[in-house]
C-alpha cells in the first residue's frame, strides 16, 4: 500500500526555530548566526566585536563546536555569559539545542546573542535556528570561488563578512571574480571587508549590528 505523506522533513527543527523567533522578538533580543569554514576567523571576529561593544550592550554567546571548549575559553575573558554546545560530531547546530541554551541566559537583560555555528559552509545554512539573520564569514585565504561552490549560505545570509583582507596581496584571491559571483548569487547581499587581526573594517560591521539592534528594540 502507498501512504501519501507530504510532510516537511525538517518540520520539527522549523517549529522550534519559529518558537525561538517569537520568543526573541517578544524579548527584543537580536540573535545572529555566524557561519563560516573552520579558520575563517569567526572567534577572532567575536573577540574584536566584544571589545567594541563592551559596556554598551549586554551580550550573550552560544558557541557551537564539534568538540572541545577552546573557542569558549578564548571568549571567557570578556565576562559575557557563554553556553557551549558540543555537537559530538554533528556538523551544524539545530534549533532544539539553541532553545535549551537560551534557558541558561537571563534573557531580559540581554541585547545581543551571537551564535558561532560549527565551522562548515554547507550544513549550518540548511538549519534555521531561530536567528534574526545568518551572517556568512569568509576569509580571502579560502579562495574567491566559495560563493559559487556553496550557494545556499550566500543566498540565506543577510550580510557577508570578507575577512583577512590584509592578506589578499599574498593570495590569488580575485576580488573582481568574487564580487561578480556574489552579485550573481545574491544581488541583495551587502559585503563588508574586514581584517580582524588589525581591526580594519570593524566600524562598518559594528554599525550594521547597531542598526539591527535599533530595528529590533523599535
Amino acid at each position, binding site marked *: 500500500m*502507498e*501512504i501519501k*505523506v507530504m510532510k516537511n522533513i525538517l518540520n520539527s527543527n522549523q517549529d522550534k526555530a519559529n518558537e525561538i523567533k517569537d520568543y526573541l522578538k517578544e524579548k527584543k533580543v537580536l540573535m545572529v548566526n555566524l557561519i563560516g569554514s573552520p579558520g575563517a576567523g569567526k572567534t577572532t571576529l567575536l573577540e574584536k566585536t566584544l571589545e567594541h561593544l563592551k559596556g554598551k550592550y549586554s551580550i550573550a554567546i552560544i558557541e557551537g563546536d564539534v568538540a572541545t571548549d577552546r573557542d569558549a575559553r578564548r571568549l571567557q575573558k570578556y565576562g559575557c555569559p557563554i553556553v557551549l554546545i558540543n555537537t559530538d560530531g554533528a556538523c551544524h547546530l539545530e534549533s532544539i539545542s539553541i532553545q535549551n541554551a537560551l534557558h541558561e541566559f537571563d534573557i531580559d537583560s540581554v541585547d545581543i546573542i551571537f551564535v558561532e555555528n560549527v565551522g562548515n559552509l554547507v550544513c549550518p545554512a540548511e538549519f534555521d535556528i531561530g536567528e534574526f539573520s545568518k551572517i556568512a564569514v569568509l576569509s580571502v585565504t579560502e579562495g574567491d570561488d566559495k560563493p559559487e561552490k556553496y550557494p545556499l549560505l550566500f543566498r540565506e545570509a543577510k550580510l557577508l563578512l570578507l575577512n583577512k583582507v590584509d592578506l589578499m596581496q599574498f593570495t590569488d584571491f580575485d576580488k573582481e571574480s568574487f564580487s561578480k559571483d556574489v552579485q550573481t548569487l545574491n*544581488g541583495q547581499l551587502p559585503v563588508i571587508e574586514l581584517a580582524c587581526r588589525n581591526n580594519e573594517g570593524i566600524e562598518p560591521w559594528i554599525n550594521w549590528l547597531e542598526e539591527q539592534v535599533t530595528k529590533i528594540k523599535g
Partner: protein
Amino acid sequence: MHEFSVIQNILDIVDDIIEENGLKKVTKVKLLIGKMRQIVPETMRFAFEAATKDTPLEAATLEMTFKPIHMKCKQCEKEFIVHENCYFCESCQSSDLSVIHGQELIIESVEGEE
C-alpha cells in the same frame, strides 16, 4: 554531511507512519528535494542504508525527485527557473526575488506492507 540529520528526521516521521498504519515493513520512501538544498543523493543513500539496518525499512528503496529552483521577481512578477546559480530576473535583471520552488525537503509518500 547534513544528510545524516535529514535521514534521522525522515526515520522519525516514518516510524509514526509505520505505527499509525500497522506496517510490517516499508518498501519505498519517496522524497521531493529542492535543488537549493545541497543534498547529495549518494550520501543520502549511504546514510539511509546505515540508519535502516535491522529495522522495518531495511529493504526499502529511497526515491528522490529533485525540483528545479523556481523564482519570482518581486519587481516585475516574472517567474523563471534558475540556471547555474544565476539569481537575476530574466526580464528586468532585478535581484529582488522570492522563492517559489527549490527549498523543498518533503516526504511525498511511503509504501509498505501490512
